[in-house]
């Protein structure tokens, strides 16, 4: 039989600590329970330990939470989460294509920053790295007066070009207008001549009809006249 020990500092050292807590919290199987109860008959340490631990558990039960207000849980989603959710909507193949596209764009941007030049000329593909060297001579320094003059010349040149352009456009417009006008005049003249011809033809026809009628009436009147008393027709 084990000797009885007082206090929590030295409960028992029989090697059945785990069995004790299993029994204490009622998680032992029937066989384990029976075994441990037999053991406690001989082990004062375990028997006292069970009592002391029971008291501690009773104390622990004194700290119960009251009617606590429900903690408010707000599930804030970060922009990254929203982006992930949005990406998740798309099928895998489209996500893969987008990823490859983005990677290619990144590569191009990186290459451009690195000063890489890619050229394809006459069927030859060439890649060169690094920024162009400083072999080109540096531009000479230019004074502000010279710059002003250059600007003024450029403006004057530009103005001259514009004036020439407008003059050419104006001339072209005038030509187009004249041609149009001439065409209309010709058309009007032709129409007038046609109308005149038609009127002349109608008048000639009318004259011929009138002449025919007058000639017939004269002949009839000549033959119908009795001129025996005046054979000369002059009253003599």
């Amino acid at each position, binding site marked *: 039989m084990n000797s009885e020990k007082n*206090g929590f500092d030295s409960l028992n050292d029989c090697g059945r600590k785990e069995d004790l807590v299993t029994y204490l919290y009622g998680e032992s199987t029937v066989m384990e329970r029976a075994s441990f109860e037999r053991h406690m008959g001989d082990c004062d340490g375990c028997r006292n330990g069970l009592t002391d*631990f029971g008291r*501690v558990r009773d*104390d*622990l039960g004194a700290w119960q939470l009251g009617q606590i207000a429900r*903690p408010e849980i707000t599930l804030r989603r970060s922009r990254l989460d929203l982006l992930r959710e949005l990406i998740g909507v798309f099928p895998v193949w489209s996500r893969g294509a987008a990823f490859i596209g983005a990677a290619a764009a990144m590569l191009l941007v990186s290459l451009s920053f690195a000063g890489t030049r890619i050229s394809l000329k006459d069927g030859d593909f060439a890649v060169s790295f690094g920024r162009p060297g400083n072999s080109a001579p540096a531009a000479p320094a230019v004074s502000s007066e010279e710059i002003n003059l250059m600007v003024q010349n450029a403006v004057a040149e530009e103005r001259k070009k514009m004036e020439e352009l407008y003059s050419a456009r104006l001339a072209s417009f005038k030509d187009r207008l004249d041609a149009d006008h001439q065409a209309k005049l010709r058309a009007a003249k032709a129409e007038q001549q046609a109308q005149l011809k038609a009127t002349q033809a109608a008048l000639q026809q009318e004259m011929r009809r009138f002449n025919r009628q007058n000639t017939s009436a004269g002949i009839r009147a000549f033959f119908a006249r009795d001129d025996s008393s005046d054979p000369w027709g002059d009253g003599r």
Partner: protein
Amino acid sequence: MEFSDDQIIERTLAGETDAFSQLVRRWERPIYGLSLRMLGRDEDARDVCQETFLAAFRNLRKFRGDAKFSSWLYRIALNACHSRLRKQSAMAEQSIDQEDGDGRRFEIADGGLEGLPERLQRDQRAEMVRKALHALPAEMRQVIIMKEYEELTFAEIAEILQIPVSTVKSRVYTGLQQMGARLQKMRGLL
């Protein structure tokens, strides 16, 4: 209709994000209770509770379902508690008595005026328990809290902490032993 945790997770992952609020309602009180007893301060417990559910929501796809959802949630909450405890210990150390002097920073059962003397006695006992529990190393405190207040089995605690069941039992034993010794000492001082 009552959905299981796994069913709610499936619905949430299928895009029904509002379904997750059912899990929050179901588990917020246990998680809050665990955090409060681990940290001793209501505001810290609320923060940990918030962090836990946010982390769970964000990492729901990583939850493989090998363990129970509640075990996973408890693990997240305990990690958050330990992280907060580490920060607290790194800051200027405050004695537990000084903390109490700043005001009542823990929750105990409340009631009306009825049975006031008994309640005062119970509150005094609860405060002693809180102090004794806080004096325990965190690894022991967490197993005592999970066993005593969350009523988890040894196997469940072992799963949450990812340690052998025998280690859990050993920690519970040592924790109760130290608690008992401290409470006995406190009673002797009264």
